[in-house]
């Protein structure tokens, strides 16, 4: 290694490679794309919207860049590259402030780790990274102008700051102004104090003037806008790593300046700075590692860096969260077997996993065979997530009703989703499909026109354009045919899930999915009366034998209420009868001790009996905690 600078670059490159690989194999940017429904579009309408408010331009740029997250390998490369560039520009901006590289070996690569760690959260919006990249580039530019002009008064900083305010928004403007201020600090004199006062004044004035006269946003947003005003960000919990990321650039710069101050190794007069040439600067920076002690120090710092990185990963990386997103992703791709197998890997109950698991059973025709393979701890609230209605359930609800063939409801929730996830390819596709199914071709064309402005969706658009141009093609498409056949009855008051399901079954008695969900609903609600009533719909369906979950329910209800005539005539298989006897024996042996009985019957945890006795919310009193949304009336 010839110089410390080269060595530092090598470390940065190594960290970039690590970031790339980790992102590729452990993060998967296509999950970000899926979860956030990143959608960049061509056209003036889209562009004009984003240039109409501070921070919008960076959002536009981010959408353009992060649309490539759909390809994991490209996305991982972009994440690694952005971290590298931010580190490089920060390094280039601050290295004139410090002669020794010791601190640099620690602080510069740690930026890359932070930029990777934020990606562990799938709600993280990449615009934050892009904005930090914008700041780092402009800091470098600002510093270059500083050095070249040697001017004490930083008018250029104000101009660049205003530009950043418009491109990135209030928070990034403040970060830039603060960082530039710290970097501009020199030996105190009158001009220096005037410069500080000027930067501080403008740091306050620019957002205030923008608030007062230019943009109708709130004062808080004018000063501290840091994330896009998109509905997905409402759910972003702003974890500690988010604040660490925002603070990273100014903190590194402060550390650098403090380090320089204490070591008293940066004592250049104004003239010296002014007269320094580029070659001198480079020479000045490239001091070879001089002795064995320094090598130990550097090695120690790298060790600390790796330890800190590990600590950051420990705090932020959650394979479980990734798995949940993967389940959602696979559900959207209709990889139902994967959904079922992945759900089994989730140890702690999760309502959305439960919901997707149930959807997977619905789409593979296994609801009444495997319903209790996942703990249905919220009962029927894991089947239907309409209530309480919250923004995050809009699209999954649309998906479920689409599965069931209730296109009216699917469309209703797709509209709600479209409000929250503007231009989302998934939502637009759903709207197009629903409109085609409902034979509303003009509206389908409107949505398709918007989707066609998304470069990632050209193939899909091409396919469904043909459906719209030639409704005959649509009419012969198997999916469209099935959904049209399953469509709900279109008149009546269907306020609750069972009524919606019944309306569908009455329209199409062969809608097996609707029937199984109806029965599952009765079972999960312990609603014996409705179960008996709803059994009548079974006759139109081709069940060769009674599904095992139904057998379990019938034998249980039969054991509890002997008078149920209808249930008594249903034949239960010997295997189920035998298992039930064994279960009953184990529970009786516990002599009323519920916990003991639960332990004793744990082998039966996939049965309806276990659900009724130990897991059902009617027994556990488990309540769903969600925040309902405001309603628009």
């Amino acid at each position: 290694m010839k110089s410390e600078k080269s060595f530092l670059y090598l470390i940065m490159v190594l960290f970039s490679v690590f970031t790339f690989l980790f992102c590729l194999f452990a993060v998967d940017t296509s999950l970000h794309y899926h979860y956030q429904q990143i959608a960049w579009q061509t056209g003036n309408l889209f562009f004009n919207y984003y240039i109409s408010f501070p921070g919008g331009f960076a959002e536009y740029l981010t959408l353009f860049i992060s649309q490539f997250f759909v390809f994991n390998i490209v996305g991982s490369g972009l994440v690694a590259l952005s971290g590298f560039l931010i580190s490089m520009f920060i390094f280039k901006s601050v290295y004139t402030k410090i002669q020794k590289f010791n601190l640099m070996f620690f602080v510069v690569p740690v930026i890359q780790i932070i930029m990777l760690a934020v990606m562990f959260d799938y709600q993280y919006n990449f615009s934050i990274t892009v904005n930090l990249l914008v700041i780092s580039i402009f800091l470098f530019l600002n510093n270059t102008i500083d050095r070249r002009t040697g001017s004490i008064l930083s008018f250029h900083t104000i101009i660049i700051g205003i530009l950043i305010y418009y491109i990135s928004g209030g928070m990034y403007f403040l970060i830039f102004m603060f960082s530039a201020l710290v970097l501009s600090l020199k030996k105190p004199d009158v001009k220096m104090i005037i410069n500080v006062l000027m930067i501080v004044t403008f740091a306050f004035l620019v957002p205030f003037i923008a608030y007062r006269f230019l943009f109708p946003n709130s004062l808080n947003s004018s000063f501290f806008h840091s994330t896009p005003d998109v509905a997905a960000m409402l759910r972003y919990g702003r974890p500690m790593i988010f604040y660490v990321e925002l603070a990273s650039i100014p903190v590194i710069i402060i550390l650098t300046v403090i380090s320089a101050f204490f070591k008293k190794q940066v004592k250049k007069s104004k003239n010296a700075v002014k007269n320094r040439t580029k070659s001198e600067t480079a020479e000045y920076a490239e001091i070879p590692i001089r002795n064995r002690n320094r090598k130990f120090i550097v090695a120690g710092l790298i060790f600390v860096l790796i330890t800190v990185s590990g600590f950051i990963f420990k705090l932020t990386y959650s394979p479980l969260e990734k798995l949940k997103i993967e389940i959602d992703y696979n559900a959207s791709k209709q990889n139902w077997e994967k959904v079922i197998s992945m759900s089994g890997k989730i140890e702690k109950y999760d309502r959305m996993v439960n919901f997707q698991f149930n959807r997977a059973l619905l789409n593979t025709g296994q609801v009444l065979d495997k319903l209790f393979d996942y703990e249905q701890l919220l009962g029927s609230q894991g089947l239907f997530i309409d209530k309480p209605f919250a923004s995050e359930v809009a699209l999954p609800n649309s998906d479920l009703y689409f599965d069931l063939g209730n296109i009216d409801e699917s469309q209703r929730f797709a509209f709600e989703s479209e409000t929250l996830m503007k231009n989302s390819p998934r939502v637009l596709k759903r709207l197009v499909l629903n409109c085609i199914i409902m034979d509303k071709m003009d509206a389908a064309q409107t949505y398709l026109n918007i989707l066609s402005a998304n470069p990632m969706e050209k193939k899909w658009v091409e396919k469904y354009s043909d459906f719209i141009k030639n409704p005959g093609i649509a009419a012969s498409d198997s999916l469209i045919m099935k959904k049209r056949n399953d469509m709900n009855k279109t008149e009546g008051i269907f306020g609750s899930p069972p009524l919606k399901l019944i309306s569908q079954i009455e329209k199409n008695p062969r809608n097996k999915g609707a029937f199984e969900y109806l029965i599952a609903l009765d079972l999960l609600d312990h609603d014996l009366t409705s179960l008996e009533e709803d059994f009548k719909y079974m006759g139109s369906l081709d069940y060769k034998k009674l599904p095992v979950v139904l057998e379990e329910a019938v034998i249980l209800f039969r054991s509890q209420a002997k008078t149920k005539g209808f249930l008594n005539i249903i034949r239960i298989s010997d295997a189920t009868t035998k298992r039930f006897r064994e279960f009953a024996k184990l529970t009786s042996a516990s002599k009323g001790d519920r916990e003991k009985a639960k332990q004793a019957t744990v082998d039966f945890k996939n049965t309806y009996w276990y659900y009724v006795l130990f897991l059902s919310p009617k027994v556990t009193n488990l309540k769903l905690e969600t925040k309902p949304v405001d309603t628009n009336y």
Partner: protein
Amino acid sequence: MKSKVNIHYIILVIFIGFLNACNNLPRDSAESAKLPDIFPDYTDLTIPPNIAPLNFIIKEPGEKFAVRISSKAGKEILISGNDPSIQIRVSQWKKLISSNLGEELNVEVYAMNDEKWTKFKTIKHRIAKENIDSYLSYRLINSAYVLWFEMGLYQRNLENFDESPIIENKSVNGACVNCHSLSKNNPEKFMFHIRSKFAGTLIYNEGELEKVETKTDYTLASAAYGAWNPDGRHIAFSVNKISQNFYVFKDQSNEVTDKYSDLIVYDTQTKMITTSPKVSTKSRENLPEWSADGKYIYYISAPEANSDSSQLISKYSLMGIPYDPETNIWGETDTLVSAFETGKSQTFPRVSPDGKFLVFCMTNYGYFTIHHNESDLCIYDLETGKYRVANEINSSETESYHSWSTNGRWLIFSSRRIDGIHTRTFIAHIDEQGNFGKPFVLPQKDPDKYNKYLLNFNRPELMTGRINVSPQKIRDAARQDAIPVTFDPKVNINALSGASKIKK
């Protein structure tokens, strides 16, 4: 020197050649007897002389296109090129139509295929002599029913394509802003509501902005649907307990219903609301509208909702009651169009400024017509007491909220006729006898906008000019605490409505 002259000459020739290439009409063309297929449907219209250019897209197949727009006087407009999107310069358009009031406006469309030009049948418009109010306000909102995220009230200059926000809800932390209303289309007197965060009613009254809370102990809710008295002082409101139901009726996604509703009148000077037992009954009085002289309130009324189904399958009659805001004296109620007689529901009454006509929506049930594709506009002659369905402006899709121009010669209204889902604003001429011209959609700079725009133009209201108060000032007023209004102590009824929850 010589070479310089030559260069200038060449440049000039190229430039002239370029201009000719751009604006020349084909010399030889085959005549087609059919009108060209264009979007939006801008054919055979009566148009205001101050309307923005009617930009359109030629939907006919072609490699090149040419358009000539001409009238009796003034310089014709020539546009040609490869782009079927025809965007007319505002200044050229203005000159041409403003110098041809009352005359025909001819639009000739040419399309070239395989080097052969076709000239389609000339589109003929009539340029009316009467202007339309120069501004339009509306709310832009997504198609959702329950959720919202971004929304705002906007004003659009109808003489060009300028659109600017009156308020966007990001100013009020994402709250809902709705139900804006003006006094006689006067931009100096307007109001709107803010729901959820920073709740209240913001009233702009000739330079003064104030936010009031219209819910009192004696009213069942905050004020909802409002109508300014032409005196510019009083605002009539309904107060409603609203709910939504989904997919109740065939092909209708949503039904908005009220369990209760009453009428109130708010005095902007005394900050007091009043009512009468006659308009605060167990029946559901709703959607007030003042007569042209400001001494009569039109409204709709449905019987008491005893059950879910009676709430849903309600039919509203068009009613009226004399009311003098100066003396606070109420007359007797009168039924203008009875739901029992029509078998339909009457809603959204809007009176023409000359007091001769009242336009309302007629639908199968309820009053909130935007989701009713059977909803049609009807015109009621206030002199003869007769109404008719205005078939000349209706379509198979929803026709809903409407607004008159101050001269009474233009009606704008909401319609979903373009794609069946998204609400757009249409403009129609109306003559002195109450006959409408063919309606046309609000022109846009990009004529393709409606084909790729998912926001709905909600509650369009014409305005005589621009609202000259900045969005920043409106934001500041909106974020203030609302001033509570008082309830008229002389109203001797027990909390307005037999249906209301009473606190006295």
